């Protein structure tokens, strides 16, 4: 039995520029998959193609064994939800109104609001703890609250698969953790399969069950965080000399960059040669 969401021999790019070639990926069912990699490595592009938002130049994205490009958009949107990076809240929209937009793929163009719609929206707002904000205007919320509202909108789609494009970017450390705790709860308690693009390696190692490391449009390593986050692999992926130690809090991998020329005074006898100016 193959996994529900797979990319096969994908060539991805925009206009004349190719970002990735012959890229294949399996999203393990029931996993919390996190994709990491340096800027411009193609991780968001890959996620957008898996979400049917970007059409691959070659290759196929298979959802439940069928090519995602040939399936109706609304049907796909009932199986797979996307938290996009570029979402804009219209002026004067309330939280409840925005979350209810997530019901679009379940509704006919002129159908009325059903009990199932109401239940899904209530649940989505409860799960993301935005119920007290239901009547508030989205443009008046803090960054962390706003991100939870967008996640609530995607949850209201009631999809077994969730794709999240940099859900923690621009958030402070507390709100990053809040969002990832929420993702982990959706994964553990509600059985969702999640795919997220993240920048913070340490948080990725804490929360992911399956980690994919990309560079220059290629997947260099995938597996459990313990398998992927090694000193050798981090140097290869990010060109970053680093130490990897167990996180004293969780025991997961913790990436500590080696100190550089202008770092504050470090441990004496540091073996790593300083970069010469």
């Amino acid at each position, binding site marked *: 039995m193959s996994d529900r969401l797979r990319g096969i021999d994908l060539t991805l790019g925009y206009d004349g520029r190719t970002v990735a070639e012959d890229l294949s990926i399996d999203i393990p069912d029931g996993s919390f998959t996190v994709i990491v990699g340096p800027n411009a490595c193609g991780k968001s592009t890959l996620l957008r193609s898996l979400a*049917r938002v970007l059409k691959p130049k070659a290759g196929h994205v298979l959802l439940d064994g069928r090519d995602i490009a040939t399936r109706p*958009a609304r049907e796909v949107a009932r199986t797979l939800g996307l938290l996009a990076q570029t*979402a804009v809240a219209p002026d004067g929209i309330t939280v409840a*109104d925005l979350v209810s*937009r997530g019901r679009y793929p379940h509704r006919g163009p002129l159908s009325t609001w059903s009990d199932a719609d109401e239940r899904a929206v209530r649940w989505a707002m409860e799960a993301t703890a935005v119920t007290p904000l239901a009547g508030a205007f989205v443009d008046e919320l803090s960054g962390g609250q706003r991100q939870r509202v967008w996640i609530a909108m995607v949850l209201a789609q009631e999809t077994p698969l969730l794709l999240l494009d940099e859900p923690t970017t621009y958030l402070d450390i507390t709100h990053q953790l809040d969002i990832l705790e929420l993702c982990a709860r959706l994964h553990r308690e509600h059985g969702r399969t999640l795919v997220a693009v993240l920048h913070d390696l340490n948080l990725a190692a804490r929360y992911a069950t399956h980690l994919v490391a990309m560079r220059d449009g290629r997947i260099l390593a995938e597996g459990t965080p313990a398998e992927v986050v090694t000193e050798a692999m981090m140097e290869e992926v990010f060109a970053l000399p680093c130490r990897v130690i167990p996180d004293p809090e969780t025991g997961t991998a913790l990436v500590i960059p080696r100190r550089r020329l202008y770092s504050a005074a470090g441990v004496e006898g540091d073996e790593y040669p300083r970069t010469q100016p």
Partner: protein
Amino acid sequence: MTARARLRVVGVSAALAVAAIVIALVSISGGDYPMSLPDVVRTLFGGGSPADAFIVRELRLPRVVTALAVGGALALAGALFQSLVRNPLGSPDVLGFTQGSATGGLLAVVVLGGGSTAVAAGSVLSAIATGAAIYLLAWRGGGHGHRLILVGIGVAGILTGVNSYLLTRANIVDAARAVLWLTGSLDGRGWGQAAVAGGALVLLTPVVAVLGRALANLELGDDPARGLGVNVGAVRLTALACAVLLAAAASAAAGPVLFVALTAPQLARRLTGATGPNLLPSLLLGAALLTGADVLAQRLFPGHQLPVGVVTGLLGGGYLVLLLARTARRARV
């Protein structure tokens, strides 16, 4: 949307429909041969004297139906454009469509010396050509609202120049006729013009209504809309085509009436307090607005009728200044 918000949209729409009907009746009742409102209603339902029947059904009703349909079509076109470009400035007046339809009408008058049918055909064809040109220039490969507005303003500028040139080439009789048409007027509109604007509205409103929710989600951005299952390319192209056809039909029936498309959706939105394109309330408000402007145009200076475009220009221009002033103030904060 909560139940209360939905109720407000329904209530506002009903009130606007009633207002449009009342204004239409008032419009029919007035003129050189005043009638009472009960007489108007009785005549509309088949009663009244033969003289009343002739005046109402052959002279005044076609003009009022044209006003309602043109106002509704323009407002609906404006609501679609504003939703598509995610900007309150998105309206056929700003984006060059109005100027484009004027070019065709002027060509028909000045170069071909044609009558009202030729003017209508010319304005429809050139509005569609303008729509296609702007789509190709600004929208190919996923458009952005700002780019469309900037391209539209450029196209509008070019076409304004072309229009002025055409007017200088016209003889004085044609020029006077053309200027009256360019202002936008409902004078002497018969069932033919009512059928053009009304037909477009009746045919395209259902199409647009089906797109309503998809358009509201498109306002979130292309990627989130696709994630929700919106066929972004198809929805955008269909909405744009409907908007161009509605604006073209309105222009064919009454000339390029300014500012209704710009103001009606904004006012409707403020009344309903709802997000999204507010299609039905905009349509109804546009119908009431243009019919009301026509009543003012006929009665503001007794014995001297104004073209309705002058009234909408004054009202709408004032509103635009207010809108820009408010936007500037908010941007400063």
